[in-house]
């Protein structure tokens, strides 16, 4: 694997997964990542009334999802951990890392893993996860 310090186009944001145990986590970056999307959203609580035409809203349920894409590497331990968690119905600890520094961790459910193996093309794995609870800053 090449040294990632050898140049970055865009943000070096990586998704890490726990390849250790829940009590002694070992976070490893899933190999050969090409894209990642983290979404955090809050549902609306609408407390508008007839007293005013203005809509009034408050924060409802918070939720967060992660989706990312990586090249298929048969021996990659992060990929294997995700696949095992998905098949066993286990939650998996994930972390967000930026420029080599783990920022936040969370417990996640694997929603889907899509594996695409084209003829004469690179094989790509697409993963979608939903966070259970909230993100926790590392060190808190």
């Amino acid at each position, binding site marked *: *694997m*090449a040294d*990632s310090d050898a140049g970055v186009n865009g943000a070096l944001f990586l998704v890490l997964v726990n390849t250790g145990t829940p009590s002694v986590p070992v976070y490893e970056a899933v190999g050969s990542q090409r894209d990642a999307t983290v979404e955090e959203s809050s549902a609306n609580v609408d407390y508008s009334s007839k007293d005013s035409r203005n809509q009034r809203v408050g924060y409802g349920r918070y939720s967060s999802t992660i989706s990312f894409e990586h090249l298929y590497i048969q021996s990659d331990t992060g990929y294997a951990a995700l696949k095992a968690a998905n098949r066993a119905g286990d939650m998996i600890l994930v972390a967000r890392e930026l420029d080599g520094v783990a920022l936040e961790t969370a417990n996640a459910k694997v929603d889907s893993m899509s594996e695409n193996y084209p003829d004469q093309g*690179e094989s790509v794995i697409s993963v979608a996860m939903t966070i259970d609870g909230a993100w926790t800053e590392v060190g808190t």
Partner: protein
Amino acid sequence: MSILTAAIYNKLANDGTLTALLAAYGSEPAVFTTDPVPGNASLPYIVTAGEVTQAPFDTKQTRGRSLIRDVRCYAAADGSAAVVEQIAERVRTLLHRQVLVIDGYSWMLSDCAGPIVADDDDIYGRIISVSVIAQED
């Protein structure tokens, strides 16, 4: 030096079926990786000199290359293209979907387009374009 030069040369020059169809240059089969070939080279021969295109094939954590390289096959224009076509077909067999050993890289895929005709006045030519993707180790 291109990362593909040695890989393709070794693949071609070490195949007995192909080298039996080629002339010799010195004690080696006439497979050249420079352009133009030496003036005293005899036909038939193969020239593969550098890439036509070369683009990154990177991820956030890995580096790689996507390359296209031409392999040009030539034989004397003696009224029959049988020899040059045999050479070109053998080159395609050796490179299409075949693993290449690339120093410092892991081969991912190879794909050949052609052979296409590149005849000239007194020389018959066929060109095979090899697409290769490889990742740095």
